[in-house]
């Protein structure tokens, strides 16, 4: 198989917040640590983690729009070059685009058309938008609507349209199908698949493994702020081909595999155990899991577990 060009390489990425502890001490609160993801052109990578695990911050970090009290660490390499603040500024909205969760991310008081065109009125942007709308079977009248007037079916296509105004080479979809039923999910996902097939790298951030497996080429499993496994989507066909105990647990929790859930909850970032964050819930927990656990290549995927073979 021919190696495709890497569009974004995220190495050892971390995000932490400043926060007060009891009393007057300010501490850094690490929401994401040790996150590694690689996205190639034409590839769709899903980062799967449970809700509230800080996945959106990954998207904001790549775009350079983290809140002021957040600190980012690690390296982002975009198209072979370090992704600096200046490059982020220049690229976001054009080569690197975000598709948000819902229309709540649209300005409630600005009509759809002008909003997608970012207020531009020139002929070129008008024609471009008309073309995009045509491609998504959206009537031109939709451009005259306000976000609250959109129907559920239009919502998704309008949001994806916002991404198409630039020349996207990297599409970040942050939880793009919240609460949608499966038929709608498939339709939305097909839009992203299409983008990937046209050559863009797609980073799908979601809590729903089932959805991710429908369309993604690779799946990165995210647990308590850390990537625990980076596997081919095919590896999720059976439990044995998976590497990390948490991925296996996620697999067993899928409907077709018997809905078995494991005990316990993800630890809050403040009370992380030493070593492997999954340790306390893992049935193979040993002394060795208490140390620093590095990322290893295992059977073509990567895993952060001392036991994995």
């Amino acid at each position, binding site marked *: 198989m021919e190696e495709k060009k890497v569009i974004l390489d995220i190495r050892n990425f971390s995000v932490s917040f400043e926060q007060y502890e009891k009393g007057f001490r300010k501490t850094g609160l690490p929401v994401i640590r040790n996150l590694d993801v690689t996205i190639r052109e034409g590839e769709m990578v899903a980062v799967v983690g449970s809700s509230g695990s800080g996945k959106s911050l990954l998207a*904001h970090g790549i*775009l350079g*729009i983290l809140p*002021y009290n957040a600190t980012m660490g690690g390296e982002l390499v975009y198209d072979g070059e370090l992704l600096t603040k200046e490059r982020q*500024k*220049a*690229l*976001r*909205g*054009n080569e690197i*685009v*975000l598709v*948000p969760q*819902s*229309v*709540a*991310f*649209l*300005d*409630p*008081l*600005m009509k759809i058309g*002008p*909003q997608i065109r*970012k*207020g531009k009125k020139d002929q070129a942007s008008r024609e471009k938008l008309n073309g995009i709308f045509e491609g998504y079977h959206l009537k031109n009248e939709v451009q005259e609507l*306000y976000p*609250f*007037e959109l*129907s*559920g*079916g*239009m*919502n998704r296509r309008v949001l994806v349209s*916002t991404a198409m*105004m*630039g020349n996207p080479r990297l599409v970040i979809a942050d939880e793009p199908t919240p*609460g*949608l039923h499966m038929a*709608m999910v498939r339709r939305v996902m097909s839009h992203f698949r299409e983008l990937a097939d046209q050559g863009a790298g797609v980073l799908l951030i979601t809590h729903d493994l089932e959805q991710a497996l429908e369309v993604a080429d690779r799946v990165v499993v995210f647990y308590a702020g850390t990537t625990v496994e980076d596997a081919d989507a095919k590896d999720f066909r059976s439990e044995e081909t998976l590497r990390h105990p948490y991925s296996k647990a996620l697999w067993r929790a899928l409907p077709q595999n018997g809905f078995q859930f494991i005990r316990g909850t993800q630890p809050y970032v403040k009370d992380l155990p030493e070593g492997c964050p999954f340790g306390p819930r893992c049935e193979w927990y040993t002394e060795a899991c208490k140390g620093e656990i590095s990322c290893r290549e295992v059977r073509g995927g990567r895993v952060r577990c001392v036991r994995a073979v």
Partner: protein
Amino acid sequence: MVSWLPWPVIRERNFVKEHFIFVGKQAVRMVLLVFFVSLAAFVLVSVSPLDPLQANVGQAALGSMSQEQIAKLQTYWGVDEPPVERFLAWAGDFFRGDMGLSLLYRQPVAKVIGVKLANSLWLMAIAWILSGAVGFVLGILAGLREGSLLDKVIKGYSLLIASTPAFWLALVLLMIFAVWLKVLPIGLSVPIGVEAAGVTVADRIQHAILPAITLSITGIANITLHTREKMVEIMESDYVLFARARGESTFSIVKNHVLRNVLLPALTLQFAAISEIFGGSVLVEQTFSYPGLGQAAVTAGLGSDVPLLLGITVISALFVFGGNLIANILYGVIDPRIRRGGAGA
């Protein structure tokens, strides 16, 4: 959470009609509120141990009145009639445009208020527009970058002014401009000793400058602080975050999103400021001895001129509630979520 509807909801509603109903309801509410304000004010002056007739007995006012006029005063303020009837008599006359006689000015209250209001409207209109415009701009500049030096300066200034009593600010400005620099007159709306006809527009303006500036400065602080708060909210909103994610510059974000979204709350704020400007004018006019409605209110209160005090109260309530009503109507016209239907914002 947003609910997801699988199909477009067909809305066959008549929004123009709905808006009229909304406006109608608001208008009725306003009339009721004004009624209750007059009732409350009437009760307050009625329970006072200060008797307006006693306080003004022996004064020229009562002496120069006709029997009929005195009889009317006694119906309102005398102790013989039951309070409810007294109120109804007064309210009935008021509704017909007869606000009674001012005990101090020896003229119909309506006439006194008319003259004073004309003087005050100048001041208040200038202050209202200036404080609205300047406050809006300052609030946006401060809120655009929360925590920046500019924000700190603007916020600090506004907090300071908001904590400064209007009358003291007036005194300080008087000290600086009238006493120390001697560039502006000390008080009164016209030069003393000049015939009413001889008063020029220039005179009027000159005497209104300091009061208007004082009133504006006081008003700016509040509008700035509130606009800033809204701005901070907007800048932290999901849609601004997304706009930034789409590569929009700060300028573009302000032009496309901020102005639109801050305008609606600013509108409400601007009309709510009428009450504050009215209140401020009482203090400022008294300090500058500017013969407007505010000073008349103080004079009426100190001199037990109950008919005038009540008249001013009702008129100012009319302005305040009228302002609210206009704000509500404009809101419906401007906000597409109300104008174009939807469940309302």
